[in-house]
């Protein structure tokens, strides 16, 4: 009864003793090999995040400054993306727009997914009446198309960054609630949970050590796959006039302004903000897909 040394075991344990940076680097390389397309768009997403962080440095002009000598000018050397009807630089506004867009999307998804996940955790773990009632409420929330729910909440709360975040976050809650609940339910059936109970572990301990750690991957998957949707909802709210109030430079606001500029909106005011939205959403969607495939291929389509 000797234990044969198995090569993968040896390799894995060597990996485990490597210092953290090397492990992170190894993980990233693995990710890149596994889905090069996602890795590329992940880099694009990172660039967009960098652009948002460094917006004041990169943008050639302050986003709110009007230049009355060049109003509603098509792109030329001084204003590469042209200017709007009151002479604000479109390029600078697009760059600053990434800030609002990302802040809102990240905050909303983080807030909504986290709340939803904890709710789902509680539902799955407690079960019983709490679960039945919660599932009903979640179903009610899912009976609204998300844009309409966000619109109604944003309107009711009045405009502002905080309210937009809350409005979008609420539309994300049901997803966290459903997915994490089902993860917890399936984990509860696993015999390692029963094993822990037979050891005399308390519910709290089972929750913290056996169930919570396994919810991290689905949670991350949920959060990343919903970023794109959140960005589109934010832009739509801005476009419909219930987003962050003007003159804040958001992509949705810029498109709404373009439409209000006259019967025929100038093409550059329409083109650039939309391209920004599309590329950002594309980047986050594909990055999210890659994360999902690497973390848990079984969740394909489930989230």
């Amino acid at each position, binding site marked *: 009864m000797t234990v044969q040394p198995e090569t993968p075991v040896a390799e894995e344990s060597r990996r485990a003793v490597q210092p953290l940076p090397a492990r992170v680097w190894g993980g990233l390389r693995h990710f890149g090999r596994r889905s090069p397309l996602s890795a590329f768009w992940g880099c694009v997403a990172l660039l967009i995040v960098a652009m948002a962080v460094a917006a004041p440095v990169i943008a050639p002009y302050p986003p709110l400054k009007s230049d009355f000598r060049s109003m509603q000018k098509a792109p030329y050397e001084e204003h590469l993306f042209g200017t709007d009807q009151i002479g604000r630089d479109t390029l600078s506004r697009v760059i600053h727009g990434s800030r609002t867009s990302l802040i809102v999307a990240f905050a909303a998804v983080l807030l909504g997914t986290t709340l939803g996940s904890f709710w789902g955790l509680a539902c799955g773990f407690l079960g019983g009446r709490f679960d039945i009632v919660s599932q*009903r*409420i979640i*179903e*009610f*929330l899912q*009976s*609204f*198309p*998300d*844009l*309409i*729910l966000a*619109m*109604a*909440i944003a*309107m*009711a*709360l*009045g405009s502002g960054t905080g309210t937009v975040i809350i409005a979008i976050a609420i539309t994300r809650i049901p997803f966290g609630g459903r997915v994490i609940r089902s993860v917890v339910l399936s984990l509860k059936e696993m015999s390692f949970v029963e094993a822990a109970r037979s050891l005399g572990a308390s519910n709290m301990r089972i929750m913290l050590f056996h169930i919570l750690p396994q919810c991290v991957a689905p949670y991350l998957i949920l959060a990343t796959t919903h970023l*794109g949707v959140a960005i*589109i909802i934010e*832009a*739509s709210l801005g*476009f*419909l*006039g*219930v987003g962050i109030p003007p003159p804040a430079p958001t992509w949705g606001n810029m*498109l709404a302004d*373009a*439409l209000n500029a006259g019967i*025929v*909106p100038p*093409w550059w005011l*329409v*083109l650039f*903000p*939309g391209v920004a*939205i*599309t*590329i950002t*959403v*594309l980047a986050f*969607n*594909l990055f999210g897909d890659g994360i999902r495939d690497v973390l848990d291929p079984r969740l394909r*389509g489930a989230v």
Partner: protein
Amino acid sequence: MYSYIVRRFAFGGITVFGVSIIVFLIMRIMPGDPLTAIFGPEGMTKLTEAQRQSYMEELGLADPLIVQYLNWILDIVRGELGRSFFRAESVGEMVLRRGPLTAQIAILSVILSWILGIPVAIISALRPNTAADNTARVISITCLAVPGFWLGMLIVLGLLFGFGYRAPQTAGGAGLFEDPGTVLQIIIGPAFVLALGQAAYIARMARSSLLEVIREDYVRTARAKGLNGRLVVSLHALPNALLPVITLSGILLGFVLAGSIPVERAFGTPGLGYAMFTAVNERDIFVMQNLVFLYAVVFVMLNITVDIIIAWIDPRIRYQ
């Protein structure tokens, strides 16, 4: 089957009730009161306390919440959908006048999404992981990332600059069958834009479900009998593969109703979505309350209908 339908509708009733409570609560959490929305912040300051009080009572906003809620539900039951603060038209009239246009847009977009999505799915499924399949994948991923309302603005601009064409803004009250030319010109743009996103989902779903079905034994048998690949797919696989696509399409239809709000705004289409846009900007809470509720009810009904259609086609579902 009958009991399944009854059960499904009973659940739907509970959902609609829950939805009505959520809508009502959202519309009553407004900070500041609705009068600010009507008279503007300046107008508010000019109102005396007594005037404010009388307005609130007139609008029924002074009653306790539960009374307000019950009155609202009673109104709906009586078919009275309330009135806008700003317009003479009642919400009911508005829905009847503008609703058909939005409904036509939604239905046309579903049809277009099948016309666009299914052939792409068949091509992808017949030759999985080839250049054609990958191209289809990239296109559908892109379609999901493009905001529809922006695409709408681009189309309007493109047509205007390229062909000097602008779609008519109104059919003058004529319906689809009275003036099909004009109505089609109004609805085709929004429907196309809304169809793209759906087509992307449908193509993905139909592709994977086709691939699954193609691998099943009865398709292999058909192939063994001598039918060639293309025929096998169209004759045997397609109807079964389309089942999940029907479900998806029904769910997407609900999202199309929501998506049509910014898209109608982009095209300037005089549909219900545009009315929603106007109401939300004017903070017209009674219109919003009823329209949001209406949209949610339609959404719930769509889901029930899809469930029933699926149960009718596939009897296994009824017993789950």
